[in-house]
């Protein structure tokens, strides 16, 4: 299994593996925090020099065990997707669809074996697998995933939310026929300078670009600069600080999760802060 893996129920997580950097955080919405309700978002990340598998999940507020449902789903899916990183085959849409389907069905079976109600564990899913042998997003329900090359934020490839007719109705992996709502977006092979971001519904309004096109430069550009210069663990904490800040709270009262993934321009994996340590950069 590739390492490092974000710990179960972590609130923030940063990692560096080969050319990859990952920083992720989740925070409860202000109303959940006031009521003492746990954050019902979850994320899971597996990063290795060969690529990154990342998942965010939003547990439905109306579900009794939304938080545990989202955490279990995100970990089960990230672990299954991580097998693609070490495999020899192409990481194409078919492979990612098969892996997410297998993970989702296994999660559903595990809940059933435990006598748990699927409806009590309603959770969405936004996943990404990024490798040099192919990349893809997988998506059920709301939230957003985006991939931008060379800081082309307006031109980012997006996996958009799928809601019901109304914006507060969405699809869940725990729902019947969930595979009909599993959308897989094939992406170009990962390249130096690529930045991917996964967010749950609460962070989407300030992550998606103006008019719903691309990614928001006012967030992604400074975040990516910061992530290139600072330790991933610090970046993850700073993401949490922003998600929990006044501006973010004013925009959305929901739980918020953001996973940032960057691929260095430097194949050795050294980033801006450590460039002087690498003779290949001289």
């Amino acid at each position: 299994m590739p390492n490092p893996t974000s710990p179960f129920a972590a609130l923030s997580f940063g990692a560096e593996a080969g050319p990859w950097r990952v920083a992720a955080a989740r925070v409860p919405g202000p109303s959940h925090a006031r009521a003492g309700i746990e954050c019902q978002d979850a994320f899971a990340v597996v990063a290795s020099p060969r690529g990154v598998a990342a998942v965010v999940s939003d547990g439905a507020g109306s579900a009794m065990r939304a938080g545990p449902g989202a955490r279990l789903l995100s970990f089960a899916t990230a672990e299954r997707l991580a097998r693609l990183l070490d495999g020899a085959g192409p990481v194409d849409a078919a492979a990612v669809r098969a892996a997410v389907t297998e993970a989702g069905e296994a999660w559903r079976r595990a809940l059933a074996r435990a006598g748990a109600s699927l409806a009590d564990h309603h959770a969405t899913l936004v996943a990404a697998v990024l490798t040099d042998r192919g990349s893809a997003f997988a998506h059920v329900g709301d939230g957003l995933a985006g991939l931008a090359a060379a800081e082309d934020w307006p031109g980012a490839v997006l996996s958009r939310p799928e809601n019901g007719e109304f914006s507060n109705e969405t699809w869940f992996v725990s729902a019947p026929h969930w595979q009909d709502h599993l959308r897989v977006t094939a992406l170009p092979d990962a390249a130096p300078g690529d930045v991917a971001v996964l967010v749950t519904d609460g962070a989407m309004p300030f992550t998606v670009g103006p008019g719903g096109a691309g990614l928001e430069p006012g967030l992604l550009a400074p975040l990516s600069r910061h992530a290139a210069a600072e330790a991933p663990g610090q970046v993850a904490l700073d993401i949490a600080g922003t998600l929990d800040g006044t501006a973010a709270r004013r925009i959305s009262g929901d739980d918020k999760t953001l996973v940032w993934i960057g691929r260095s321009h430097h194949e050795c994996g050294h980033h801006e802060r450590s460039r002087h340590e690498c003779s290949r950069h001289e």
Partner: protein
Amino acid sequence: MTTPPAVLRPHALPDVTLKDNRAERLACVVVVDGSLSMAKSGAIHELNEGLKIFEAALKDDDEAAIAVQVAILRMGDQDRVETLVDFVDAVDFEAPTVLASGSTPLGKAVDQAMAMIEQQKQRYRQHGITYKRPWLFVMTDGAPTDGPVYDEVAVRARAAQAEGRFSLFAVAIGPEARLDQLARITHRFEPVRLIEARFREMFVWLGASMSSASRPAAGQQLALPPPTSWAVIEV
């Protein structure tokens, strides 16, 4: 000598400006009674004052002012339905002055309101704008004067609500208003009777409820404040 590990502390990301790029809307059509009986009872003045309060309540809420879109229909004259305000962002909404004369074509008014809601949803979809379930707020002090039309529209209105196409709230004004008739067009929310002439309290409630409903979904069922300050629910 070893260097102690750096202590990581959470800060906000430097230089980040968060913008709300979500374009989520909540459409609300208010059908007001402009029939002659509203003038005879003096209720028309209270209604007009209430609409001004509604305007102020929406504009005072930053989120509602942007998210809510309002349209006002008046029924009156000779079974006529008049669009006093077509859909407009709440921030630009100006309360109209409703005149009172003529009849109460409730069936035609609800029919037109339902058509406006569907057209507005179509516009939202064409422009990629997400939206919450629209609201249709109907108030009258009498009974429908377009009986056959009302009979047909009432069936469609209930079916549309059962399909979740919009939420309808009906308010009876004064003792002559027929709650039993209003109950024919409601599905989830029972019609209520306005206490005396508490339009002011009713529109304060409507503004607050629209503000609450316009908030981004947090996965919770929408909980509206009880209308007890201005209405009674008769059983």
